[in-house]
C-alpha cells in the first residue's frame, strides 16, 4: 500500500499546514483524496490500525464545542498510532486573545507534531500557525474555512459518482456564516464542478458570486439538474426573526423535502455536514433514506480524510528524522 510507505521525495503535498482549501491545486487535492481512499480500505479491514505515527503527538485544540469533528480527528490519529490529546478551551471574546497566544505557546513547549485547531474567529488558526513549530490542521475557523469537511465531502461524492469534474452541486442554507460552504466552493470549483448556492438573501454574503458560483433564491430552480444537494445547518439563534422570520417559513422555502428534491436529477444525492436540524433544513425521513442520503457515509469518509491529512503533514518530519538516523 503506497499510502503507508515512506517515500524519499513526495511532490504530492508540499504544504506545511492545512489552513484552508483556497490556494490548493487540483493535483494537491487529488493527491489527498487518493490517499484518503486507501485509508478507507484500511479502516474497513480487520486490522484498522497502523504504527505510522507511533511516538507522534497530535493535540486536538478546540476553542469551540464539537463532538463529531473532534472524535473523527481523534480516531484518525489513533488509527495511525499517534498519541492523541484533546484540549477544550472555553473561549469568550471578553477574555480577548491572551488565551489564544498563551495556549499556543504553552502547547508549543510540549512539542506536538500536529495541532488540530478549531476556533470561533475567522483567521484565528492562521494566527496560531505563526506561533508554533508543529503542523496545523484547521478544523474550522469562524466563517472562514473547514478544509477537512470539504475534502471528506469531495471524497464521498467521488466514490459515489466516480468524479467531481462536470458535476453540478447545490449548496443550500446559511452560506453567510458557513465555513463548510466556503471550503466546498473553493474545492469544487478547483476540481471543475459547477457550484450553485441557494439561500434567502439575508443568508448570502456580499459579492459571493465573485467566487465563481451561481446564486439562487428559489430552491427548485437551484436544484434543477443537480447531481448533489448539500444542505447546511441553520443555527437556532438565527431562525427567529434575525436572519429568517421563522422555522416554518424557512422549511417551507429552503428546507429539503421530497417535493423539492424532485427538481434535481433522479439519481441526485443528499449531503449534510451535521449536526442536522431535522424539520428545519431537511425533512427527517429524507435524511435517513439510504438510497438518497450520503450523510452516514460522510462520517466514515471524515476519518479517512483526516488520516490522510495527518499522514501527509507529518511526512516531512518523519523524513528528516530518517536522515538524522543515518548520519
Amino acid at each position: 500500500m503506497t499510502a503507508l510507505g515512506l517515500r524519499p521525495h513526495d511532490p504530492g503535498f508540499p504544504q506545511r499546514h492545512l489552513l484552508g482549501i483556497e490556494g490548493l491545486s487540483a493535483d494537491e487535492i487529488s493527491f489527498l483524496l487518493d490517499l484518503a481512499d486507501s485509508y478507507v480500505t484500511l479502516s474497513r479491514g480487520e486490522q484498522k490500525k497502523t504504527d505510522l505515527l507511533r511516538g507522534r503527538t497530535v493535540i486536538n485544540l478546540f476553542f469551540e464545542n464539537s463532538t463529531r469533528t473532534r472524535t473523527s480527528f481523534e480516531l484518525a490519529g489513533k488509527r495511525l498510532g499517534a498519541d492523541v490529546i484533546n484540549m477544550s478551551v472555553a473561549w469568550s471574546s471578553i477574555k480577548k486573545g491572551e488565551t489564544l497566544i498563551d495556549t499556543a505557546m504553552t502547547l508549543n513547549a510540549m512539542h506536538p507534531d500536529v495541532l488540530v485547531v478549531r476556533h470561533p474567529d475567522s483567521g484565528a488558526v492562521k494566527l496560531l500557525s505563526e506561533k508554533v513549530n508543529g503542523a496545523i490542521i484547521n478544523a474550522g475557523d469562524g466563517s472562514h474555512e473547514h478544509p477537512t469537511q470539504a475534502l471528506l465531502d469531495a471524497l464521498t461524492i467521488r466514490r459515489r459518482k466516480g468524479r467531481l469534474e462536470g458535476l453540478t452541486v447545490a449548496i443550500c442554507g446559511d452560506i453567510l456564516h458557513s465555513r463548510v460552504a466556503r471550503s466546498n466552493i473553493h474545492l469544487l470549483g478547483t476540481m471543475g464542478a459547477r457550484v450553485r448556492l441557494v439561500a434567502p438573501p439575508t443568508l448570502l454574503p456580499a459579492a459571493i458570486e465573485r467566487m465563481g458560483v451561481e446564486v439562487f433564491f428559489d430552491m427548485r430552480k437551484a436544484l434543477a439538474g443537480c447531481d448533489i444537494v448539500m444542505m447546511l445547518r441553520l443555527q437556532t439563534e438565527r431562525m427567529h426573526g434575525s436572519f429568517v422570520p421563522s422555522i416554518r417559513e424557512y422549511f417551507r422555502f429552503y428546507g429539503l423535502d421530497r417535493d423539492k428534491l424532485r427538481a434535481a436529477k433522479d439519481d441526485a444525492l443528499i449531503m449534510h455536514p451535521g449536526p442536522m436540524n431535522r424539520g428545519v433544513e431537511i425533512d427527517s425521513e429524507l435524511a435517513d433514506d439510504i438510497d438518497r442520503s450520503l450523510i452516514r457515509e460522510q462520517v466514515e469518509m471524515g476519518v479517512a480524510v483526516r488520516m490522510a491529512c495527518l499522514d501527509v503533514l507529518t511526512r516531512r518530519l518523519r523524513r528528516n528524522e530518517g536522515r538524522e538516523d543515518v548520519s
Partner: protein
Amino acid sequence: MSATAYVNARLLDPASGLDVTGGLLVEGGRIADLGPRLFAEGVPEGARRVDCTGHCLAPGLIDMRVQLREPGEEHKETIATAGQAAVVGGVTSVVALPNTEPVIDDVAGVEFVARRAREAKLVKVYTYAAATRRLEGKEITEIGLLAEFGARGFTDGLKAIANAQVMRRALSYARAFDQIIVQHPEEPALAGGVMNEGEIATRLGLEGVPAAAETIMVERDLRLVELTGGRYHAAHVSTAAAVEAIRRAKARGLAVTCDTAPHYFTLNETAVGDYRTFAKVSPPLRSEEDRQAIAEAVADGTIDAIASDHSPHDQEGKRLPFAIAEAGIAGLETLLPLSLALYHKGGIGLLDLLARLSARPAAILGLPGGRLSKGAPADMVLFDPEHPWLIDPDRFRSKSKNSPFDKHPVQGKVLATIVDGRPLYEAEA
C-alpha cells in the same frame, strides 16, 4: 529668547499662497518677518543663523484627530510620548479625542490635558470634549462651560452620535457658543463588521461594514445641519458616496467640513490580506474606487483636512484574531510623508496639500497656528519633499508601533520642527 534667522528657505504659506525662496526671522516665539529679500543686508546681529539649504519651511502641521491615551491608558501612549511622535512628524499642534479613561466630558478633564501638555513642553495640545456625557449618546455635555475652558469642539470620539434627536440638540445648542460638532459618521446598526463589506470579507469569513453605513449617517447629519444651522465636521471620511454627499452640501452652502486620514487614500481593503490586524481601522479600509475618490476629494478641497487619526495600540491589542483585535493605526509620524504621495503623483499642488495639513484644520477649529505670516506663532516644519525613505515602525517615538506601513516607501522627510520658536526636533543628518 534670542532671535533666529532661517535663511535660504523655500517659504510656503498655504493661507496666503506664498511660495518663494527667502528668509524668515523668529523673535520671541513669533514670526517677526519673512520674505525673499529679508536678509539681503545679512542676518541681524546676535541672531542664530539656520541655513535651510533650499528646503521647505511651512506652518507646522495641525493634526485634528489624535488619541493621546492619557489619562487611563498610559501603557499605549502618553501626552509626552505622543508629543515626541508629533515633533518627529512635523506636527506642532494636536487635537485630542475625549475617549480617555475617564472620558473628557467635564471641565476638570480639559484642564488636566492642558496641564499635562504644559509639563511635557512639546507640541501644542488641544482637546475636544465629549458631545454627550460619558460618550453614552444620551445627554449633551456642558458645551458652553467646556468651550470657555478651552475645549475646541465636541465629539463622541470613536462612537457616532447615533440618536437623531440628540444630534439635533447638540448641533443646535452648540450654535450659542459657535462650537462645532465632530462626528464619527457610521450608522452603528450597520457597522457591526470588522472590514469593508465585499468579496475579500466574504472570502475571509469576516463580517463586513457596507459603505452605506457611512453614507447614511453623513446624509442624515446633513439634514440635521440644515434643520439646525449648526456647524458640523465629518471625521475620517472613507467612501466615495459620503464625499459626494458632502460635496453637494457644500455647494448648497451648509457649514460642513470633513477630514480623512492618510490610510484612506493610501491603502484599500486588500491591505487586510491574510488577516493583518495592523490594517484594521474604523471605518474600514475601502474599495479601490473609494480610495481614489478620497484622493480626488482631498485634491479638489471637498475634504478640508488630513488628520493622522493617531490610534496607538500595544501588541496585545493587535495580536488577536482579526474580529476582536483593536482598530487603529499609530499615524503621527507618517502623516506628512504619506500625504506628500498625493503631491508626488501630481494630483494636488504642494500649497494646497499643506493647507489640508495646517491652515484648514486651524480655521475649522479656530486654532492660532497654520500660518507663515508676520506676527503668527513660530510653529513651523522644515522638510525636504523629495527625500526617499522606508517607513520603519520600530523606530517610532510613539509608545505604540501599530502601523501597516512597515517598509512602505515614501518620499518627503521632516528635517526640523519648531514650536513657538523653539527647535524641538532636528533629523539626524
